[in-house]
C-alpha cells in the first residue's frame, strides 16, 4: 500500500479541531465580549454576525470527536474518560451558549437578561474548560494498560488552569477582530480598543506556553531545542512576532480584515506549535498514533468518504458565509 492512513487521519483530526478552534473560537469570543457591551441593539448585532453560521462552526467539534473515535478508539476512550469533568463542564457551557442564540430573540424583556447571562456564562465556561482540557492533555495523561490511570481532578493544576485562561484570551481576540470586520461605527471602535490589550495578552500567553511546556516536559524541550529541529523550527517564533506586528499595525491603520487575519495567524501558529510538541503522540506521553490506530479496514473505509465529502462541505460552508457577508448594522430593523 504505502499509504499511512493513520497519519492522514491524524491530519484530518488536526484540521477538524483547528477549524473548530478558529470558527467557534470567534463565536465563543463574542460571548465573552458581551460584558464589554451593554446596549441591547449592539448585542443583537454582535450575535447576528454569527447567528446563521454558529451551528456549522460547532459541527467541527463533533467531527473532531468522531474522527478520534473511528481512527484512534483507545485514545478517544482514554482522553474523554480522563478529561471527564472538564469536558462535561464544557458541554454544559455549550448547551447554555447554543440555546441562547435562539432563546434570546424569543424572550421578552424580562427574560432576556437570563439569556444574555447564559450566552456569556456558557461561552466563558466552554472556552475555559476547552483550555483546561487542552492543558491537561498537553501535560500528559496517565495511562495503565489501555485505560486512564489518573484521578478525576488531575486537571486542577497550574498548567491546565493557565491554558484555560490562554484559550479564553485567544477566543476573545478572535471575537473582537471578527467584529471589527463585521460591524461599523461605535461598536467597531470599541472592538478596536479591546483587540489591542487582548493581542498583547495573546502574545504573553504564547511566550508563556513556549517557556513553560519545555521546562515542564523534557520531551518537548528535546523536540524544539535539539539539532537540526531547532533550525527548521526557528521561523515559528519569527512568524509569531510578525503576526503580532501585523495585528497592532492594522488595528491602527487598516482596521477591517487584516486584524482578523493576523489573529488567525497567531492562533494557527500556537496550535501548530502544540502539535509539533506532541507529535506523534495521540495520548501524550504514552501512546503514539500508530499504537492507538483502529484497523486499516476502519480507517480506509472512513477515509474514502471523508476525502470525497470534505471538499463539498468546505464549498457550501464558504457559500453560506458568502450569503451573509458584509457589515451588519442595526439599521435593517432588528428585533
Amino acid at each position, binding site marked *: 500500500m504505502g499509504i499511512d492512513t493513520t497519519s492522514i487521519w491524524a491530519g484530518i483530526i488536526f484540521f477538524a479541531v483547528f477549524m473548530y478552534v478558529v470558527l467557534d473560537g470567534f463565536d465563543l469570543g463574542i460571548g465573552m465580549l458581551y460584558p464589554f457591551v451593554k446596549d441591547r441593539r449592539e448585542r*443583537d448585532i454582535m*450575535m*447576528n454576525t454569527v*447567528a*446563521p*453560521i454558529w*451551528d*456549522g462552526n*460547532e*459541527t467541527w467539534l*463533533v*467531527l473532531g*470527536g*468522531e474522527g*478520534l*473515535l*473511528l*481512527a484512534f*478508539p483507545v485514545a*478517544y*476512550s*482514554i482522553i*474523554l*474518560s480522563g478529561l*471527564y*469533568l472538564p*469536558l*462535561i*463542564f464544557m458541554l*454544559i457551557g455549550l*448547551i447554555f451558549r*447554543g*440555546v441562547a*442564540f*435562539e*432563546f434570546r*430573540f*424569543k424572550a*421578552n*424583556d*424580562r427574560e432576556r437578561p437570563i439569556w444574555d447571562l447564559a450566552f456569556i456564562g456558557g461561552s466563558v465556561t466552554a472556552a475555559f474548560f476547552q483550555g483546561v482540557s487542552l492543558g491537561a492533555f498537553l501535560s500528559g495523561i496517565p495511562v495503565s494498560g*489501555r*485505560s*486512564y490511570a489518573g484521578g*478525576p481532578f488531575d486537571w486542577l493544576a497550574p498548567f491546565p488552569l493557565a491554558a484555560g485562561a490562554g484559550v479564553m484570551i485567544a477566543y476573545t481576540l478572535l471575537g473582537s477582530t471578527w467584529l471589527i470586520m463585521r460591524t461599523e461605527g461605535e461598536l467597531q471602535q470599541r472592538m478596536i480598543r479591546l483587540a489591542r490589550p487582548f493581542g498583547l495578552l495573546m502574545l504573553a500567553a504564547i511566550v508563556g506556553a513556549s517557556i513553560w511546556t519545555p521546562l515542564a516536559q523534557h520531551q518537548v524541550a528535546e523536540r524544539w531545542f535539539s539539532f537540526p529541529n531547532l533550525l527548521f523550527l526557528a521561523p515559528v517564533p519569527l512568524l509569531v512576532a510578525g503576526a503580532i506586528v501585523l495585528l497592532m499595525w492594522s488595528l491602527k491603520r487598516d482596521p477591517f480584515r487584516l486584524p482578523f487575519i493576523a489573529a488567525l495567524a497567531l492562533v494557527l501558529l500556537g496550535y501548530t506549535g502544540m502539535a509539533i510538541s506532541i507529535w506523534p503522540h495521540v495520548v501524550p506521553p504514552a501512546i503514539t498514533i500508530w499504537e492507538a490506530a*483502529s*484497523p486499516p*479496514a*476502519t480507517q480506509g*473505509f*472512513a477515509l474514502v468518504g*471523508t476525502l470525497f*465529502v470534505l471538499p463539498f*462541505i468546505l464549498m*457550501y*460552508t464558504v457559500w*453560506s458565509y458568502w*450569503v451573509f457577508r458584509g457589515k451588519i448594522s442595526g439599521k*435593517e430593523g432588528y*428585533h
Partner: protein
Amino acid sequence: MFGLAALDLARIQFAFTMSFHILFPAITIGLASYLAVLEICWLKTKRQVFVDLYHFWLRIFAVNFGMGVVSGIVMAYQFGTNWGYFSEFAGSITGPLLAYEVLTAFFLEAGFLGVMLFGWTRVGPGLHLFATCMVALGTLISATWILGSNSWMQTPQGYEIVGNRMVPVDWLKIIFNPSFPYRLVHMSIAAFLSTALFVGASAAWHLLRGRDKPAVRTMLSMAMWMLLIVAPIQALVGDMHGINTLKHQPAKIAALEGHWQNEGDKPLPLLLFGIPSMEDEETRFAVGIPRLGSIILTHSWDGQIKGLKEFPRGDRPNSLIVFWSFRVMVGLGLLMIALGVWGAWLRRKGRMHDTRPFLRMAMWMGPAGLVAVLAGWITTEVGRQPWVVYGVLRTADAASKHGAGTLALSLGLFVMAYLFVFGVGIAYVLRLVRKGPQTFENAHPPDGGPGQGRTPARPLSVPEPEAADRQDGP
C-alpha cells in the same frame, strides 16, 4: 457495591440525556420535511397560506433545532466520557458510522440552515427552497446513519473479534444488518407522526379558541391526511419490526410479552394487563385475549415463542419495564389510527374544523407521538439488556471506570441544566404555537442587482411578529 452504583448512574445519565435528545430530532425530522412541502406548495400555488405557515413553523423549527444540536453534542461525547470500554472495543465499527453522520448529515444541515432561517431575502426563491430541502435531506441522512449504528448494536454482524476489540470485516453487512431497515422505517415514520400530531394539536388548539383562519384549517387538514395514511402503515411496519426482533432477539419479545414459558401446545394469549415479576418468574394479574398473541407474533393460529425461562437469568431483560413501555407505544399507535379515521370521516361531512370533541382529542394527542417514541426506544433499549452490543459485550463491561461521586456530580449537573434549558425552550415553542400563523408580508422580496445580495430587509435572527405579541415589549 460501589461499582454497581457507578454503573447505574452512568446508565441513568445516558437514558436521561438520550431521552431528552430524541424528542428534538423526532420533531426536527418531521418539521424539516413539512417545511419543504410547504415551500414547494407556496412556489407552485402562490397561495398566501403556505408562505404564512412556512414562516410560522420555521420559527418553531429553529428553536427545536437549536435544542437538538446542543443536546446532540452531549451524545457524541458521552460514548467516550462514560462508555470508554465500549468505544475502545467497538469504536472501529461504530466510529465510521457516526463520522459519516457528521460528514454527510450534520454539516449539510448546518451549512444550509443559516440560509433556510435567515436567507429569505438574500437568495432567490429556488435557492431558498434548495436550502430547505438540503436541511430536510440532512435530517433523514442523519437518522439513517445513527439507526444503522444502533441497529448494528442490536443485531451485530460483519465483524470479527481480534485480540480485545471488534474489527470490521464486511461494511455492507455491518450497515445493512438485519434490524436496520425495520428500525429506520419505523423511526422515520414515528418522526413524521410525532410532527403531524404536534401540528394537528396546534391547529386544534387555535380552532377550539375560535381562531378559525385558512392557515389554521390547512394545518389541521395536512396533519390529518398524514395521520390517516401513515398511522396504519406504522402499525404494519411495527409488526414486521416485531417479527424481525423475534428472530434475532427472542428474549426481548418474551420480556415485552411477559411470556415465561410455554404450556404444552397451548397457543399464546395477547396480554392486555399484567405485572411481570423478575424474581418470581411469572406475570401476575395477567388479563389477555386467547390466541391473539400467537396470531400477532407468529402469524399462525397456534404458534409459540420462547419463554423468558429458556434464557439464563443473567441474560434476561427487565420484563416489567418493557411489558409496559411496549403497551404504551402500541396503545398510543392505535389511538393515532383512530384519530386519523375520525378526521377522515368528519372531513367527508365538512365538519373536521368545528367538531369540538374531535378537536379536543387532536389537541390532547399532541404529545402522543413523542411519548410513543420514548416508549418505543425504552422497549428496544431496555429489551437489549444486559448487552450493549447484543450477545457480544455486556453493558456492565462497557463503562468507563469513574467513581460514583464523579458520576453523581455530572448527572446532577445534566439534570439541572436540561430541566431548566429545555423546560424554558419547550415553553418558548409553545409560546410560538400560541401566537399562531401570521400574515407574512415579505412574500415577494425585491431582486438584488447582479452580484448583489438581495436587500437585507429583515432581521437576521428568525423573524418574529413584533411588539404586538410581546408580553411586555417596549
